């Protein structure tokens, strides 16, 4: 069996936001943007499509979506054509699966596309189908379908134990909205001030409006292939997938694996594995896209990814260590807080930004970036997914 090195060679996005377009329309926009990124590629040579979406079956009433998308974007896959669902990490799961298929020789060129159409004419639908993302028989029946209450409890735990402040939470939002202000594909192109974030209306205290990712429609797509084919298709620097990990230690809020809600053992478990697989440590990461669904999430991620000590995530962000010029710039394209979070598309958006960063063509470039990390948490924090990309395999 072959053991091929796997590269990401192209990326694309539809415009994200509140869209008067279907999930199929937006997938086509994202795929076209991705194909335009690799002009030498013939679409007929793409032998795999993985489509990442969690809510297409419900909010777009489209199950078995992958063949529909393949037809719409002019692909005729012969190795794999299927849908992937791990909610917020669906896109990253697709990239992990495609990496395995290409590495082993079961596929040669795979497109990973994904996204969601979350706004529907039936506005209640958004707030009903969210209840399906947890153990709905039990937690859902208590009325904890929407994520803010759960992350509010997480934030309060972190504030109580480590003295994290609302200003430190707000600093995440100010940074990411500033990074996203120049990203034309994201939901928002507007920076926010510390005063605006602090004074915003409460959603689930201490989380206010700007502490939460918005509800967003959008799709994204990337292309993966093996090293030899990547050299053939592009003169750009090669970007390799160096390591992957996905850790699940429980299935719902009630069997939480850590000591407390601000202790993310499943993230540390995934981080340990991905660093081993990629043969690097947290100090080697030049740029990172981590899952800032809420401001508190990014703070805890800095700690449990090993960028700073436990309890110091708030200070790390506030002192600029996760900004340009700091230890490790995080969410350089605006992250979820500025781009939005159409679940299946988010990991793909992060991969596209990482491709741009490591090839030196990002809108907000981290100078000389060679090794990058992307991270998703999914559901009410039931799973952590991490990929490490590098200019060397």
């Amino acid at each position: 069996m072959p053991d091929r090195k796997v590269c990401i060679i192209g990326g694309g996005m539809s415009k994200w936001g509140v869209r008067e377009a279907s999930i199929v329309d937006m997938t086509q926009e994202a795929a076209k943007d991705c194909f335009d990124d690799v002009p030498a590629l013939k679409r007929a040579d793409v032998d795999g499509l993985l489509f990442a979406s969690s809510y297409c079956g419900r909010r777009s009433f489209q199950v078995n979506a992958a063949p529909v998308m393949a037809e719409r974007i002019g692909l005729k896959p012969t190795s794999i054509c299927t849908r992937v669902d791990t909610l917020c990490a669906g896109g990253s799961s697709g990239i992990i699966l495609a990496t395995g298929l290409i590495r082993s020789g079961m596929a040669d060129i795979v497109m990973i596309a994904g996204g969601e159409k979350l706004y529907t004419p039936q506005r209640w639908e958004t707030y009903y189908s969210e209840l399906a993302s947890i153990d709905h028989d039990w937690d859902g029946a208590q009325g904890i379908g929407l994520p803010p209450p759960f992350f509010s409890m997480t934030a309060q735990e972190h504030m109580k134990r480590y003295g994290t402040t609302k200003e430190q939470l707000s600093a995440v939002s100010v940074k990411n909205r500033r990074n996203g202000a120049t990203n034309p594909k994201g939901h928002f192109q507007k920076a926010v001030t510390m005063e605006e974030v602090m004074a915003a209306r409460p959603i689930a205290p201490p989380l206010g409006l700007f502490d939460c990712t918005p509800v967003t429609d959008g799709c994204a797509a990337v292309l993966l292939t093996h090293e030899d084919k990547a050299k053939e298709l592009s003169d750009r620097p090669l970007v390799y997938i160096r390591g992957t990990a996905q850790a699940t230690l429980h299935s719902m809020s009630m069997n939480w694996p850590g000591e407390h809600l601000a202790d993310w053992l499943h993230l540390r478990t995934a981080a340990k594995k991905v660093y081993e697989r990629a043969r690097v440590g947290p100090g080697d990461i030049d740029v990172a896209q981590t899952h800032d669904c809420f401001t508190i999430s990014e703070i805890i991620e800095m700690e449990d990814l090993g960028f700073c000590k436990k309890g110091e995530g708030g200070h790390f962000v506030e002192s600029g260590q996760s900004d340009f010029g700091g230890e490790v710039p995080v969410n350089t394209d605006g992250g979820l807080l500025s781009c939005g979070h159409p679940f299946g598309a988010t990991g793909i958006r992060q991969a596209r930004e990482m491709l741009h960063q490591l090839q030196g063509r990002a809108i907000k470039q981290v100078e000389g970036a060679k090794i990058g990390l992307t991270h998703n948490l999914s559901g009410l924090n039931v799973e952590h997914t991490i990929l490490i990309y590098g200019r060397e395999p």
Partner: protein
Amino acid sequence: MGFENFGTVSFTAAAKAADFMTHLEAGKVMTTRCRNCGASYFPPKADCPACLSSDVDWFEIKGQGKLNTYTIVNYGPTGFENDAPYILALGEFEGGIQVLARLSRDIKPDDIKVGMSLALSPVKLPDNRVAYEFNKV
């Protein structure tokens, strides 16, 4: 009967742990312990996730629990709009059993303290529905 009348909005009518509802209607919040490996859980399960045995026993979650964390829900999901605002909390009971439930409306927001003692008990809802909630000890 199954879970037809469980909670403000129930999602699953048929599940193998339906005895939970019979006990809840009778005034007890019960859950399961595996006779084979001794593991205990909440929510209850008819088949053990640890050893996969189907030999499980019911026991009541009683005594004092501890409030670990809580949140005030201002925007309820569809089906819960008329309930908001309500308070969701995580409580921990003997043997490390963790329960997510609402706090009784008898507990005023100003009186809530992390670490305070709680009891878990059934609560009757409108339209003959039934759930469980945390109460003052």
